[in-house]
């Protein structure tokens, strides 16, 4: 992808939709793009040192104790809960096919969210929606 395509891809993700162009450029330089082959775990249940991920392309399976509980796709993010709680992930996230994702190193999440409160707000909204859905199911 060239610079313009990277910025367009970021701007199209709900998480980053409130950022202006210079902020998007800074975000594009802060998160690294990674590629994961099918079957590789991107987040590993019980492992320390994980990161925060935003899916650019492809689908992942969220797997708890070997059982698939959800599928995530483009624009979805994961990894924030364990980082916010300072604990190891409680689920595996496995690449269902080839996956491209943006990665932020775990230790950088706090500073990142404080630097971009509008991203934090969007994240809160998404997490609240997940919580709401879980409450309705239970």
């Amino acid at each position: 992808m060239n610079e313009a395509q990277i910025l367009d891809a970021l701007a199209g993700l709900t998480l980053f939709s409130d950022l202006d162009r210079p902020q998007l450029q800074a975000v594009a330089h802060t998160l690294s793009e990674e590629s994961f082959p099918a079957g590789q775990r991107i987040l590993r249940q019980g492992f320390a040192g994980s990161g925060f991920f935003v899916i650019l392309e492809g689908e992942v399976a969220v797997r708890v104790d070997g059982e698939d509980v959800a599928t995530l796709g483009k624009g979805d993010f994961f990894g924030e809960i364990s980082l916010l709680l300072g604990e190891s992930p409680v689920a595996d996230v496995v690449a269902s096919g080839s996956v491209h994702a943006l990665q932020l190193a775990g230790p950088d999440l706090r500073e990142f969210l404080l630097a971009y409160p509008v991203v934090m707000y969007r994240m809160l909204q998404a997490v609240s929606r997940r919580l709401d859905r879980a409450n309705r199911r239970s």
Partner: protein
Amino acid sequence: MSTQHSTETSPFPAGEYGVVVVGSGPGGLQVSYYLSRLGIDHAVISADPAPGGMFRRFPFFQRLLSWTKPHAGQAHDTREYERYDFNSLVAAEPGNRAVMPGLMDGTSEFPSRAEMEAGMIEFVRRTGLVVRYDTPWQGTSRDGDLYVLHTPAGDYRTRVPVFTVGAAQPRLPDDIPGIEHAAHYADTREPSSYAGKRLFIMGKANSGFELASGLLQWASPIILASPRPAQLSVNLHSLGGVRARYVQPWEDAELGGGVFILDAATERLERHASGIAVHMRRSDDAEPFVAEVDEVIAATGFTAPLLDLPELGLSTFGRSGLPSMTSSYESVSMPAVYFAGTITQGVSGLKKYGIPANSGAVHGHRYNSRLTVDEIAGRFFDIERPRPAVAADEVVERLLTSASAAPELWHQKSYLAHALSRDPDGTIRDEGIVSLAEYVDAAGPDGAAITIETDDRGSIHPAVYVRRRGRVDTDAVLDESPLTDYRTPEHRAQLQALVVDVLG
């Protein structure tokens, strides 16, 4: 080496080969070395007239970033010495090891570019590797399960091409109006030609700081700008940050000596009679501002020159256009197309705490090549990797010796690991050095893998991954050791407790 082709003045005439390796930099030479050791028929073709790859030209200021310590307390012809020699290619024969220290003039532990280039030439001489030079790969097509690589010398046909073409093709950002007024890093001129010039360097990664360091006594002011704050390697615990060698401009900026390090996006360049106006916008508050300079250099990175492979279906990602690959560096979208050398940095591995592997540098990718060749050997040539038996009472010592001294684990932390496994009949096998991501994510026999890791506090320690019933459920770290030697009674007891049920 191939014996079934007629010998001409140039080796490897066009034709069909078991494997075709493209490139004669460190990646290509290391792959050819391992293929040769296994007796696998292959050709090596290179666009260059001699070995060396990017080191025939870079680094620009003629001295490398990574060290080769001649006096490291280990004999040069041992594997253990590789930990202190980041720049030699690796070999199993003692006489072919540690080429670099013998070629350096003793003035610095950082080899000069010319010494590094000489090291590649000397490795080829000692190991007897054969390369067909001046034979550029110009295009690719398919013929059944064969890949056909087109060159001026004719077509090279193979089931298994290995591309080691580096990631050193200049890349300019394409969304900045006026970018044509900038020169790329690769086109930087002789330093004294910048005397008295006002210089703007776009980019704050190592190449930007390298230029600033080399031009400190010539250009003034020197402005470095990019949207993201610069970070130091010693704070990031990785090569991802600005290397210690290039910190001088940073100190200059801190002390107000004429260097400016700015967090800002470059919006456009405009040429005027008196120079170039660089229009920027601050990353923190989006306020615009302008710098008037004489010269603009874009230290904005490089891409891999993959020619027509993307049109043939090669999946790539990111700014550098690296291929999406498996843990053995095979394309995920073009079967049996492999990569080696700096391109292998596209496989990120566990990247714990955000710390990347060192696959973009010789001391990292020289070990990745072994994984690629072993997979090619097993899959296409029925040559299986040896799995020697290990006595149960040797397990702990073997793993702790690796943690203390194995160069693969120290240069590729959290990325390569030493694995032992247990066969169904109870025999314990030494699997050698493996990809850690592959080990923890693919099903396999019970066993354990050990690697070295750095955490977010900078603590370096062994980490152990135990596989039970086909799954690795957790990571376990052993205690730190002040001098990083883990062959102690405490570490033996810790490791024994972790692995006793699978390798006891």
